[in-house]
């Protein structure tokens, strides 16, 4: 039965692609998506590649604008209480794709479903800022314990644990999407099948063949459908970056969502008008396990961090436009201001190496007592190249580093368990706020705090910042926290990420932005 549906869908797609080529009216955007699609159900998604499809299909209370910044979505306005803990949203009049009105109840139902332990949603913790959310997710209370209430069909009241200026930005994330209660209650997991799915966003799922394509068509019932130019968007899951490039060259796709970094020179020469390299909200770093000797000694950590020549890594090793990182929070992060840079930022490299040697000697390491340890990274060409470079940089200090690489799953499993001395890690922000980086160094974060940085002053400042509703004041406190972290160097910041894409010159309306969000509803195709 399902096979037949796939066959019909495949024939339909084939016909549609064939017809789409001849009929000038229909605009079809073809996207080379750099990852497998996990699910069309917002609660079962954890990869950014999958979220691109759900971002096109669903409208959260807030949603991504053309420049990736949050704009009003399903909510047309909202009130925030004086203490910053109570939000009241007024929903705009709009309907699901089957004509049923979208109500506040759909949001409450969705969030309860997300937080229900049986759902096993990976991203449930994103809503922990809502009062009662964590208790619901850990099974301590039932779903009614969530402080989100539908006052009436168009009004949603939410209470938070603490004033959180990033809460509105979080609502653009798929974790906070509504789901059509009337459909999900009837069909359970089958509700996302193309013949059943109901959406409130600009596009609706038409067909999905895993490993081949997922096709979304324009949702005529979308409240802003008149301003949506692209009629159909086809997402091809292509994990191999060179295949994305080949298909882009052959004109088979209009957007390629990543490039083969080792081909950057060729791309810069031959596809300069399509290549986009844009700073991305994320950081690449090495982490020390600070509860293992000698990495409990701040001098050793600072010395090793100072001896890393970040400019060489970004300019000579990577060469794809990444920026050297001396802070944990990337510049340009929301509600923050200037990041706190490590105090050795301006120091010329030779001088930095000298100071590092002195620090190591002070800590008791030298030619008669050399420092030896293992640097771990997960298997990837770039991780290897950087690790080899850093190994050589540390050799100057008389430090002997053994390199050890494992596949991704093993690497991250071991990071969580603490089976490492120094390891490579990366972090992409879920929402545009400094807290989303700094929390990784908080004691209460638990296993995600790979370094096990256990600094009372830092924890105290983070807790203080959480209770403050004035944005300016909060930013200052967070900066003080980052200052503590950068002095202690539990991690070695290496570079800030960039996003790399290939965009056909025929695509109109693509705005480069740090969150790297480009909803199809704002795009158009020249014909």
């Amino acid at each position, binding site marked *: 039965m*399902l*096979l037949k549906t*796939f066959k019909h869908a*495949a*024939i339909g*797609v084939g*016909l549609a*692609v064939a017809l789409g080529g001849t009929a000038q009216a229909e605009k079809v955007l073809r996207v080379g998506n750099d990852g*497998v*699609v*996990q*699910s*069309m*159900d917002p609660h*079962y998604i*954890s990869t950014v590649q999958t979220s691109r499809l759900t971002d096109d299909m669903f409208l959260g209370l807030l949603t991504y604008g053309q420049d990736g910044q949050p704009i009003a979505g399903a909510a047309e306005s909202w009130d925030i209480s004086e203490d910053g803990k109570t939000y009241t949203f007024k929903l705009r009049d709009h309907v699901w794709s089957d004509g049923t009105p979208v109500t506040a109840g759909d949001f409450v139902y969705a969030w309860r479903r997300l937080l229900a*332990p*049986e*759902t*096993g*949603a*990976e991203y*449930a*913790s994103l809503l922990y800022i809502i009062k009662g959310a964590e208790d619901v*997710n*850990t099974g301590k209370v039932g779903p009614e314990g969530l402080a989100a209430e539908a006052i009436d069909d168009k009004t949603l009241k939410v209470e938070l644990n603490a004033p959180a200026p990033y809460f509105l930005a979080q609502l653009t994330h798929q974790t906070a999407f509504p789901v059509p209660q009337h459909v999900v209650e009837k069909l359970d*997991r089958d509700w996302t*099948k193309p013949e059943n799915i109901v959406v409130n966003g600009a596009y609706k799922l038409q067909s*999905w*063949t*895993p*490993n*081949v394509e997922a096709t979304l068509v324009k949702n005529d019932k979308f409240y802003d459908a008149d301003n949506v130019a692209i009629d159909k968007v086809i997402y*091809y899951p*292509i*994990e*191999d970056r*060179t*295949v994305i490039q*080949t*298909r882009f*060259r*052959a004109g*088979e796709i209009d957007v390629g969502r990543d490039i083969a970094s080792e081909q950057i020179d060729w791309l810069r020469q031959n596809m300069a008008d399509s290549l986009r390299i844009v700073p991305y909200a994320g950081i690449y770093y090495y982490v020390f396990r600070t509860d293992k000797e000698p990495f409990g000694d701040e001098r050793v950590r600072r010395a090793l961090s100072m001896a890393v020549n970040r400019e060489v890594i970004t300019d000579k090793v990577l060469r794809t436009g990444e920026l050297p990182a001396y802070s944990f929070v990337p510049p340009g992060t929301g509600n923050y201001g200037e990041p706190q840079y490590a105090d050795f930022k301006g120091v010329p490299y030779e001088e930095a190496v000298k100071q590092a040697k002195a620090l190591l000697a002070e800590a008791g390491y030298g030619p008669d007592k050399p420092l030896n340890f293992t640097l771990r990274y997960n298997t990837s060409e770039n991780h290897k190249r950087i690790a080899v470079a850093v190994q050589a940089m540390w050799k100057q200090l008389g430090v002997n580093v053994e390199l050890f690489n494992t*596949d*991704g*799953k*093993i*690497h*991250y*499993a*071991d*990071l*969580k368990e603490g089976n490492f001395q120094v390891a490579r890690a*990366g*972090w992409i922000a879920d929402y545009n706020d400094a807290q989303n980086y700094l929390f990784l160094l908080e004691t209460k974060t*638990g*296993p*995600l705090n*790979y370094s096990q940085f256990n600094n009372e002053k830092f924890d105290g400042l983070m807790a203080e910042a959480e209770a403050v509703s004035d944005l300016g004041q909060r930013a200052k406190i967070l900066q003080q926290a980052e200052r503590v972290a950068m002095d202690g160097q539990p991690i070695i910041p290496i570079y800030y990420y960039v996003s790399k894409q290939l965009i056909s010159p025929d695509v109109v309306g693509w705005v480069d932005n740090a969150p790297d969000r480009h909803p199809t509803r704002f795009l158009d195709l020249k014909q």
Partner: protein
Amino acid sequence: MLSYALRRLVTVVPTLLVIITVAFFMMRLAPGGPFDSDRALPPEIEKNIQAAYDLDKPLVEQYLIYLGRILILDFGPSLKIRDFSVGELIAAGAPASMELGLSAILLALIVGVSFGTLAALRQNSGTDFSVMSVSMIGIAVPNFVMAPLLSLVLGVYLDWLPTSGWGGGAFRYKIMPVIALALPQIAYVARLTRGSMVEVLHSNFVRTARAKGLRERLVVIRHALKGAMMPVVSYLGPATAAVMTGSVVIETIFGVPGIGTYFVNAALNRDYPLVMGVIIVYAVLIMLLNLVVDLLYAVLDPKVRYS
């Protein structure tokens, strides 16, 4: 012969059971689980997810649950592509892999046997030497070099064929993947055919046929070929199973919606049910094809008799 075939089919079940058991437990030896990633999960969420997929139960209990489901042909959900069950993924992908695989093997059979026979008939001549050299290249050049080359030359530079994709199953999307799949097989088959053909052409029954005054073409095609095919058939049994279950390289590069990628990606993702599913498919296929090969021996060689 029928009773022989039936007896062989009966042994499929216990063999499969052993394979499933070994695979199930071996799979868990690799550290890391399906939900480990750079976004490490808070412990309570990890607990919830493990519970939702029965991964928190003792391993033996998970094994028994899995066996019970297999009996009703429920292969479980995919842990990675969560909207689909393993059965749905395999049912959707197997036809493409098998179609391409069978086409490649057929192509390999026809082209390989022809070239191999030609080389054997002109043993130690220029033809023989060039056929064998070209086939050595076909064996030596890995498919991850050949496939992108084909895609680049035929798809980008010459623009004769689409570089990749499935196009709903249109014929021109299948040409390059089939060729890429077939090339190494053609090479192997040609070498095997040439080797055994040379031997058969010197055997007694061929000499008898020639002595009887038969035309050379009849000697080769009707008499020698049958005898020479034994090693080729032995090779093609497992080779067909391997090719029909898809090649991860070919399917990745040409965007073929088959099950080949699952073998590698499911393992890397620790998608346990999917790994088990494809292992079972491969195992059943190999066992069936080995049976076919053994039965073909009886057809090809009159001295072979099964009781």
